[in-house]
């Protein structure tokens, strides 16, 4: 896309596909960029067919397309070598089906998580997706990035409650997987491939979900411990007990300070246990957890507390732009050794650590920021990232969700993964052979 005349020609093509008012040609006019790289065009298709049109054209002309929802995660991933077209999904918001009696809904990818949640709340139903910034985060973005929050413990991840998906492949084929029923094994499970694919296989245009009955009430029990080890021993007790909370979250002292959780001292490690159910169920938690609990929270305060925990990744970037944020998945027994290893890495590079995690399922979010007054340079960022990677056990995987601009060129966004890379590449080639979707930002 070298000359002004080709650019003009492309612009008129996109206007023909999406309508003039849904194409922005001058990068100056749209403030959105991808890790500092401004796209030449921003298009907002109004249907899956228009997405097909845009992608077909992009394939023909070798244009790199970046799908975008609520822009809550566009700061992650590797630096793209090229961004030609920013494709907004925000007009894809149609409700395809809503069957309250069946506890299912199918909705456009551009709908936000908060919109979906409030839509079904009217019928006392519950959508468990709780990624950061739910007012902005779209369904398509949540699925493409595989994001989840504290509800992961009790309700699983999107891979467990997404039952159908419609999408357009990188090579512009409109397709679907799954359907709108809660049990369905016909055909390949396309949902699994698209969830967490970071927008590199196809553009999700809509998705169907299982819903859950809204809990009658919830209450959060906060327990405090002198060390991470004691907190994890408490986790193990929880995992071996009959209790089945909807959230089980570890919060380090520094993370608590960062989240400015009201009225809680910042000296200790905490575990938050969120129970859902009747009075009798909540009373049982009270009895079982006993003296380990220092505080119980419910109502508005509880809601705000969990919102803050969900938003932790965002808060880190907002408060401390010069920080690294790692998201790790790992086997349960590796949580303790990884926390120890990470502490050493942080210390030797003059970083302060703030950690939260769904420690009952093996997901950690670790933020490293320069210690106050410490001379932290690029070398420290690079060493911290590689040091953390080197300490990861077998079967763990890691992504860098936030990286200061100064280190982006030197800190790869994706770490070791247990899954065979060549097989993943074969999948990418099958669906996006010209590599037009999010080129360079993910694995290949």
């Amino acid at each position: 896309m070298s000359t002004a005349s080709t650019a003009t020609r492309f612009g008129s093509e996109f206007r023909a596909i999406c309508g003039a008012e849904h194409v922005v040609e001058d990068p100056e006019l749209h403030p959105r960029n991808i890790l500092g790289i401004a796209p030449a065009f921003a298009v907002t298709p109004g249907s899956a067919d228009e997405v097909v049109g845009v992608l077909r054209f992009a394939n023909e002309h070798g244009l790199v397309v970046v799908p975008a929802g609520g822009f809550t995660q566009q700061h992650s991933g590797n630096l793209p070598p090229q961004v030609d077209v920013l494709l907004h999904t925000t007009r894809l918001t149609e409700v395809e089906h809503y069957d309250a009696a069946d506890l299912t809904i199918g909705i456009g990818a551009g709908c936000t998580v908060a919109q979906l949640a409030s839509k079904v709340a009217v019928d006392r139903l519950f959508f468990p997706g709780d990624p950061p910034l739910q007012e902005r985060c779209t369904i398509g973005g949540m699925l493409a990035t595989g994001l989840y929050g504290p509800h992961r413990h009790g309700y699983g991840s999107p891979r467990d409650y997404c039952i159908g998906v419609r999408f357009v492949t990188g090579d512009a084929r409109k397709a679907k997987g799954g359907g709108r029923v809660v049990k369905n094994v016909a055909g390949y499970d396309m949902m699994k491939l698209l969830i967490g694919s970071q927008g590199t296989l196809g553009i999700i245009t809509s998705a169907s979900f299982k819903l859950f009955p809204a809990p009658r009430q919830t209450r959060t029990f906060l327990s405090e411990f002198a060390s991470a080890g004691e907190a994890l021993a408490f986790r193990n007790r929880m995992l071996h007990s009959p209790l089945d909370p909807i959230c089980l979250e570890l919060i380090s002292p520094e993370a608590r300070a960062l989240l400015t959780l009201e009225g809680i001292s910042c000296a200790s490690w905490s575990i938050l246990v969120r129970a859902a159910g009747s009075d009798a169920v909540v009373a049982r938690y009270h009895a079982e957890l006993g003296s380990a609990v220092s505080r119980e929270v419910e109502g508005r305060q509880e809601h705000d507390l969990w919102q803050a925990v969900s938003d932790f990744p965002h808060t880190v970037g907002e408060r401390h732009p010069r920080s690294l944020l790692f998201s790790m998945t790992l086997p349960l027994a590796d949580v303790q050794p990884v926390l120890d290893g990470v502490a050493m890495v942080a210390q030797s590079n003059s970083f302060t650590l703030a950690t939260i995690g769904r420690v009952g399922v093996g997901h950690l979010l670790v933020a490293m920021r320069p210690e106050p007054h410490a001379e932290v340079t690029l070398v420290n960022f690079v060493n911290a990232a590689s040091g953390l990677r080197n300490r990861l056990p077998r079967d763990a995987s890691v992504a860098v969700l936030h990286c200061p601009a100064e280190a982006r060129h030197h800190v790869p966004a994706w770490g070791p993964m247990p899954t065979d890379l060549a097989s993943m590449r074969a999948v990418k080639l099958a669906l996006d052979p010209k590599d037009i979707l999010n080129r360079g930002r993910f694995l290949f």
Partner: protein
Amino acid sequence: MSLAQVVDHLRNIAGRDAVLDRPEDVMLYEYDAGIRKSTPGAVVFPQTTEQVSEIMRLASSVHMPVVARGAGTGLSGGAISQKGGIVIAFSRMNRILEVDVENQRAVVQPGMVNLQLSEHVSHLGLYFAPDPSSQKACTIGGNVAENSGGPHTLMYGVTVNHVTGVEVVLPSGEIVHFGGKAAESYGYDMTGFFVGSEGTIGIATAITVKLLRKPEKVATLLGIFESVDDAAQTVSAITAAGITPAALEMLDGWTLRTIEAYCHAGYPLDAGAVLLIELDGLREAVEEQAEAVREVCLQQKAREVRRAKTEEERALLWKGRKTAFGALGRVSPSYYTQDGVVPRSQIPAVLRHIGYVAKKYNLIIGNIFHAGDGNLHPLILFDIRFPDQLERALAASKEILEWCISAGGSITGEHGVGMEKRDLMPVLFTEQDLDVMISLRNAFNGDDVLNPQKLFPTPRMCREITGPAQNPVLVQEGM
């Protein structure tokens, strides 16, 4: 290369006693629990992943079709070989490789029998959640291939929700790993994609599964209804009341009487239908939900709601449910089981439609199914010695599945598409949907050496939608 030469190679790879090729031996591997048959050329019993890899390498080099086989309990023809092909039978790779209590995982070989895993870890207070009715025989490798379910998938999900890693032999013979012991990983979810790919992407040789903690309390209720319609309405009412049972099964009057005559599970002989409802979890929650379920049943005109008082009573109620297929064998020479799914609110309507189809084709159709998630198993009785009966059974089955699709449902909830439903795929999926899936298959299995003729319609079927009855080349006699 001739079949005899291939067999020689197979013997070199797996051992002299690990290959069958005499017609009377391979005949035992020509069928599964469905209705189709096809005789393989050879059956090989590998003992290691490396042997599986060598077998795949050999088969790919001579373009000989291969299918992996567990216990052959599948109902969709997934484990049936193409005529003259190689069956890789996993009965000698049936060990538990590791039980990792701390990480709540087990690593098993594909030939491991489903129930044996739960029995093996029972003393630790753990179990493996997917529980197909054939769990005493079916293998975890087969469960992975077909993404099998069972009664308790209502609360706990199907096999894919319980597998976190697989070791896979690709058609090239290469051994690769997808996932591991972590619940999820960054990167494409190849594990999730592999589970349910019906043996068309690769062959699993080791499987990492989740082990769940046994619930503190289990309540098993039997709701007894005068009519199928009342029972069906109750299913929707339970869902709408915000109760998620661990299992919610329905048996119609004809089916429960057939079962009762066979195994004396304690089902009432004069009922129109029963619901078998199980709740599990924290004691307090289970008691409240059991009471709520009882109330909903009674509001929906249940004649009576019984609750199993002892573990023995509970086991007996489940024995009736899980041995239903054996019971049917006593009353009909053949039966054809379907696996359609409808949105749960459509259960009363679909059952009325099944009644209509039974009359139209003059067939007996029993109903025993996973009502809680709308997963039907109409049991169509016929006598395969009379070709017109088979034709009618297949036509009836197609009509039921098409109704399911038109109601927003699916053609399979847990049995897989396999051979039997592949020509219905174009009703459920567009040509381009299938084209995308086929391009993924071709990325791994481009020569279609691995489990050909499964899952996807034959090329002409992409355009024309015809019934399975028109393509029954592999249907032979008997079961």
